[in-house]
C-alpha cells in the first residue's frame, strides 16, 4: 500500500482532520529534534526548539503554499527557530538572567540514556561548537540531512556560492580540530 503523501496529509489537516497533523509530525519530529540537537549541542535546548517548531507548524500550516517541498519548509522553520534561540542565548550569556537551575537542566536532563551515545554526541559538540552558526548549519544540513546546496539555499535564504564557502571553511576548521594535516 502506498503511503499517504505529505501534501495529502496537509490538505486533510486543513480540512479539520487533527490526526493528519499527528501523522505528519511523526514523520518529521525526529529530524527536527536531531537537527536542533546538533545545532545546540544539548537535549534541553533542542527540546525547546522542537516544541516551538511544532507550535509554529500547527499554527502556520494553513499558510503553506504547495510550491516547495514540505521537508524544506519544516527545515526552514527549524532553521529560523534555532537561529532566534541562539541569538537569545547569546543575549542571556551577557545578562545574569540564566539561572543555575536552567543551566543544570541543560547539562543533566537527557533523553539519550546510553553512556556511549552521550559521549559521542558530546564529542561531536566539542568539534562543532568551534564553528560559527552559519558554517555549522550548512555543515549539518549537508552531512546529516544530505541536502543539496540548492535545498539548503531554499532553507537558509543564502546563495549557493556563499553556502559552498561556508561549507569549505567548516570542513577546514573541523579537519584542523581533528588533527588532519
Amino acid at each position, binding site marked *: 500500500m502506498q503511503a499517504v503523501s505529505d501534501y495529502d496529509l496537509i490538505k486533510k489537516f486543513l480540512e479539520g482532520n487533527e490526526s493528519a497533523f499527528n501523522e505528519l509530525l511523526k514523520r518529521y519530529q525526529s529530524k527536527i529534534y536531531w537537527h536542533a540537537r546538533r545545532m545546540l549541542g544539548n537535549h534541553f535546548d533542542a527540546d525547546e526548539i522542537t516544541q516551538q517548531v511544532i507550535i509554529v507548524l500547527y499554527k502556520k500550516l494553513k499558510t503553506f503554499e504547495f510550491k516547495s517541498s514540505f521537508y524544506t519548509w519544516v527545515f526552514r522553520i527549524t532553521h529560523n527557530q534555532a537561529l532566534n534561540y541562539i541569538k537569545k542565548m547569546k543575549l542571556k550569556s551577557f545578562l545574569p538572567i540564566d539561572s543555575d537551575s536552567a543551566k543544570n537542566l541543560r547539562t543533566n536532563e537527557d533523553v539519550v540514556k546510553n553512556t556511549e551515545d552521550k559521549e559521542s554526541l558530546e564529542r561531536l559538540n566539542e568539534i562543532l561548537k568551534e564553528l560559527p552558526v552559519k558554517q555549522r548549519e550548512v555543515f549539518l544540513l549537508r552531512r*546529516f540531512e544530505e541536502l543539496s546546496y540548492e535545498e539548503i539555499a531554499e532553507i537558509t535564504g543564502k546563495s549557493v556560492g556563499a553556502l559552498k564557502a561556508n561549507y569549505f571553511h567548516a570542513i577546514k576548521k573541523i579537519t584542523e580540530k581533528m588533527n588532519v594535516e
Partner: protein
Amino acid sequence: MSSKKEIILKYLSGTLTREEEKAFLNLMEKDGELKALYEQITAKLNALDLLGKEKPVDGNYFPNLLPRAKQKLETAGRSKAKFKLSPSFAFALFSILSLLFFSSLFNSSFQSKIYVEKIPASDGLTPAQAEMVNFYLENQLYSIAPIDSLYNREINLGISGANSSDLLDYYETALLNDNDLFNIIDDNEYNSIYTNLKKLKLF
C-alpha cells in the same frame, strides 16, 4: 594549510569547476600522497557523521512531544487572554489617559500663555513680528505658536545671554522647573531673554 589539503577541501565543498574536478581526480590517481590525505580527510568526516548519527532515545519522548507542545500553546493562549482588557476596563483606562493628555495640553498652553504674555510684544518688534505675536495672543493659539517647541531650549539660551549663570545652573541641574524659573526671573531678565530670542530670529 597545505595546498594539497586545500584542493581536497575545495573538491569536497564543490567549489572546483568541472575542469578542475577532472584535473584533481586525474592527479589523485598519480599522486599517492594526495590520495592518502584525501582518504584520511574523508575517513575523519565519516567518523564525525557516526558521532552525530541519531541515537535511541527514551521511548516516551517523541509520543509526548505533541501533547506537550499543545499544552504549551494552550498555556500561552491563556496567559495572553489574562492580559486581554475587558471593555469597561479599557474604557476607564482610555478616559484616564485622555484626561491626563488634555490636562498636560492645558498646562502646556497655560505655560505658553504666561511666557507669551510676559514678553512685551510691542517692544522693539518689527510691525510684522508684532502682528504675529499679537495674533497668537489674541487668538490664544499658544499650542500652535512656535513657543512650546522652542520653550525649553530658547529660555536656556536667553538666560545664558543675560548672564544669569546661577539660574541657568539651577535650571540645568533640575533644581528649578520651568514654572520656578518664571517665578524667579524678573522683568529685566525677561527683556534680556526676549532680546536673545530676537537675536536668534525667533520673533
